[in-house]
């Protein structure tokens, strides 16, 4: 609860994080509209194609906020204060994730509302929009977990911040701007194919532009759950070192 309250008491941190992906969405959906003329491009609306990226960027920002907040708790001794109470160690991680999930939920609702108002039409209808919303929140949870792991591992807000561009790099090396089969450079296509972020984007993308696709959805949810499990596992292991109480 504290992490949720704290997250929403930092408007200077969350407002740019919500608006930046919307700005990028507005710019790219106009500037890169010509890409829809490529033979084989799956839709004639770049807005429909690109809207999943807003959710991904929102999740990355939520990750950074969760990580920086926890690093601050470690740095100023708040984690020690918690460690002196009967609180379970796992509750530190879950509590901190609350802030990331709450922010991820608000972001997803805003992006969905703005997208629909701007003309995004879901091939899968209201049910598809609901599934996308759930997937977006889960992705925010997964990336939030990675932010928490980095904070626990390094104990430094600066270290968390410096790894943030690396996560963004992961986004750029995915099928963010083009479908994988239209990426000409083989090395880029190979990296995008090996990059789990591509499958998260493609799961959301199929819900908007091509209808129910069990394989895409299965892969998207699979990689998302794998990321959540990995992040929580790494966080739990790092917490044992960071909170070494007897």
């Amino acid at each position: 609860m504290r992490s949720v309250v704290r997250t929403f008491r930092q408007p200077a941190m969350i407002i740019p994080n919500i608006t930046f992906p919307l700005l990028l969405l507005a710019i790219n959906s106009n500037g890169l509209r010509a890409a829809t003329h490529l033979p084989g491009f799956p839709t004639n609306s770049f807005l429909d194609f690109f809207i999943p990226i807003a959710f991904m960027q929102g999740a990355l920002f939520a990750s950074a906020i969760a990580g920086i907040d926890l690093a601050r708790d470690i740095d100023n001794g708040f984690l020690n204060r918690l460690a002196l109470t009967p609180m379970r160690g796992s509750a530190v991680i879950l509590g901190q994730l609350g802030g990331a999930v709450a922010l991820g939920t608000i972001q997803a609702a805003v992006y969905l509302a703005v997208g629909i108002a701007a003309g995004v039409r879901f091939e899968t209808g209201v049910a598809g929009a609901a599934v996308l919303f759930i997937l977006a929140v889960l992705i925010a949870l997964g990336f939030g977990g990675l932010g928490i792991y980095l904070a626990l591992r390094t104990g430094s807000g600066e270290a968390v911040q410096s790894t943030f561009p690396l996560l963004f790099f992961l986004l750029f090396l995915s099928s963010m701007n083009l479908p994988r089969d239209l990426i000409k450079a083989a090395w880029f296509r190979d990296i995008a194919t090996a990059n789990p972020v591509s499958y998260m984007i493609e799961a959301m993308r199929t819900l908007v532009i091509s209808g129910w696709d069990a394989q895409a959805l299965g892969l998207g949810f699979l990689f998302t759950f794998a990321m959540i499990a990995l992040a929580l596992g790494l966080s739990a292991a790092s917490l044992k070192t960071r909170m070494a109480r007897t």
Partner: protein
Amino acid sequence: MRDQHGIQAETLAREFKGGIRAVDGIDLHVSPGEIYGFLGPNGAGKSTTVHMLTTLLPPTSGKARVAGYDVVKHGPRVRAAIGAALQEAALDPFLTAREHLRLQSSLHGLTRQQRRERSQDLLERVGLTQAADRKVKGYSGGMKRRLDIALALVHEPSILFLDEPTTGLDVQSRSALWGEVGRLAKGEGVTVFLTTQYLEEADVLADRVGIIHRGHIVAEGTPTELKAEIGRPTVEAVPSDPSQRAGINDVLSKFGTPTAGAPNAVSVRCEEEADLADIVRALDAAQLHVAQIQLHEPTLDDVFLAKTGTSLEGAAEEEELETVSV
């Protein structure tokens, strides 16, 4: 809240990576209801000791019992019996004082009604009722420290650890905090383990003082006992004419060994029971004039100097270079 067991440690040690022994086999015995001042410069091992005694850091070797429980085997029981305000005023800048107290009391399992009452009681006790619903980021250092101590008292602990509670506070806040710590120990029987790098704080507040230097306890006793151990007072003379400084130094050196003092003064630690009149007569005979002459009783800094060969202030600078993070 009244403590029955106090704190005991035997050859307690903590070694960090690279073989650095931040605490090197210390013995401690703190009686119930006592205020124990743990005095030493930065990096001497004070905070590492507190972290071990509060179960936040496992010792590398040795044993410690706090409130009757072994700090390694019975961590949760120790934590239930103690309160701690550690070196950093560990507060969330985006929460209010009341929210901090409610959170802390809920983590200690108090009911909603108890949380409300206990929070209000503690806010009144530390004088934060007016600021209770303001975010902590706007608080002064003294207000943060008071809240920090209130948070440590939420579950009515019988032993309180205060790690440099007055560092960075102004004189008024420091004195108010001393008053509160004194009330807790003398009025409610709470055992207080207080680390400090301020001699005055240890002198005024502590029933007994332990001096730690480079991970070892080099002296222990009541402030009076420790000072009596040194026994020898200091004479400090300020020359009327700075050109007579060397002459005054020669005369005073007959009565004791030169020691550090005010920059404009000549200081000696007397060899035996000093008679100020003899010193004044000797200066007069040598036709030397002083603007001021004083006899100082030994201080804890003199004790520190005698035990470690350096003054506390000098040791702080020296040891900051070797500070070990915990």
